[in-house]
């Protein structure tokens, strides 16, 4: 592939890589992971539930539905957050997009599996306590589904427009929404079911994060001074080590 007719610039090379599907091997890995994962989950679930004797099918149906929605939330979450982590690597041509995504996905996996669950239960303690105590009731299910569906909708919406929004904020917003509505529907005065401290935290982070991010400008200037080599701050050339059509820019 030494036909170098034009000299494609960095971005178009990136786009070429984007449009180049994941390939046969990639698809196979994808499917394999999916199959292994689902069978492991199914096996564990059936083992856990084996000694359980429930007369009706309804709990199983609800369980399946709820699990599906919850995993759907994580799925959409993955659209957003990991994408942030790989964006810079891809545009600087450090890694091929597909490798970068799989790489990042793998480490995400490790991160999740090794996590302790402290944050998980921290999220739960933000919810109205009376709903936690009766989580098996209709109100409990209404709460869980309302949370998940609201979060999925907003995450999907922002993703569609390509806006990197924070899914933590989305979830906290949903929790507060459920808290307030629960308060209103029970006609209890005040907003004690809502953790306003968390809302304030989100507000603060909206102020702090962009400012902290802009400190980057300073960091970049420092590297510019330290690294005299101008090529570093120029637009990166398409990966030179790849002997492909767009190697010659």
């Amino acid at each position, binding site marked *: 592939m030494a036909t170098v007719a034009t000299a494609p610039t960095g*971005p178009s090379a990136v786009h070429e890589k*984007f449009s180049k599907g994941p390939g046969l091997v990639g698809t196979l890995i994808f499917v394999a992971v*999916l199959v292994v*994962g689902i069978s492991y989950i199914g096996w564990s679930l059936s083992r856990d*539930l084996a000694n359980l004797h429930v007369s009706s099918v309804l709990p199983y149906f*609800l*369980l399946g539905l709820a*699990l599906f929605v919850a995993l759907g939330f994580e799925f959409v*979450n993955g*659209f*957003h*957050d*990991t994408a942030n*982590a790989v*964006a810079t690597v891809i*545009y*600087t041509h*450090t*890694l091929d997009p597909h490798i970068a*995504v799989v790489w990042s996905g793998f480490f*995400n996996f490790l*991160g*999740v*599996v090794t996590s302790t*669950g402290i*944050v*998980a239960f921290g999220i739960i303690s933000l919810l109205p306590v*009376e709903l936690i105590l009766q989580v098996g009731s*209709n*109100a409990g299910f209404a709460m869980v589904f*309302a949370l998940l*569906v*609201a979060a999925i909708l*907003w995450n999907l919406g922002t993703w*569609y427009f*390509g*806006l*990197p*929004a*924070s*899914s*933590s904020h989305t*979830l906290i*917003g*949903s929790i507060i*929404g*459920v808290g*307030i*509505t*629960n308060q209103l529907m029970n006609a209890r005065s005040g907003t004690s*079911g809502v953790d306003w401290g968390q809302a304030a935290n989100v507000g*603060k*982070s*909206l102020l702090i994060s*962009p400012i*902290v*991010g802009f400190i*980057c400008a300073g960091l*970049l200037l420092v590297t510019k001074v330290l690294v005299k080599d101008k090529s*570093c701050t120029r637009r990166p050339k398409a990966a030179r080590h790849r002997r492909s059509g767009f190697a010659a820019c």
Partner: protein
Amino acid sequence: MLTCTGGSFFHGSNDGQKGMGLIMLILIGTVPTTYALNHAITPTQTQDFIAVSRQAADSLNKYVEQSAAIGDHRDDVTDFIRSKEFKPNTMLAMRTLINDVGTEMAQFKDLKNVPNDQVRNFRNDMYLTSEALRIMQKSGKPAISAADAAVLKNYKSHIDKATRFIPLWVKVAVAIALGLGTMVGWKRIVVTVGEKIGKNHLTYAQGAAAEITAMATIGAADYFGLPVSTTHVLSSGVAGTMAANRSGLQWGTVRNLLMAWVLTLPVAMTLSGFLFWAFRKIF
């Protein structure tokens, strides 16, 4: 590349947990007999639990006020958690609750033996105790001596071990969902971050600077307890490097980004509030 690895790892360990918490809630709601209590706790550990629980009740006993009236202890503790206002009754109710949990545990001997119809109540009592202890510790009210605080902390860790656990398969399921989500939907976000924030595309130095800042911020945020969002830091980091490089910013995109960030909270609140109301009416 290292920063990307680290970012994915930390992000996964942090973000995946949101889903896990909710999944556990669902599991506890639908099949409490299996998931409400940690069946991996051994009978020896339950013996431990009973001993620690006695210590905790003794410690709390020192702080029970004379004026406290005996009410429904569950209601009292629930009220405390909801309002976070410490009342004279709270401590008495807490002591009763801890005693109850300890006595029941002594009866069952093993968490697997808890009868099906009592699992939920038993778990709820433990949950209430743990939450109430957490709030007391956080607010510093009432003032508790260091020795007693240590006893209570130890007790709380025992309770949490029995109720706050996540089966491996849940973690695996969440991890797979997250990973597959990334592989399917990463393009849109990546294009925005890489191309649409600045007028030029990212350079090596910019990418590195933005990533390093994002990483450093996660670390610093943990250390100082600052509320920051990695997403926001990274995006504005990219914008910052663009500004410093004088490449110019695409204000349309930046405006959309800011709009989305500010709108996230109110929109999510309204949506979930409405859905909750609708679901409550339907069910």
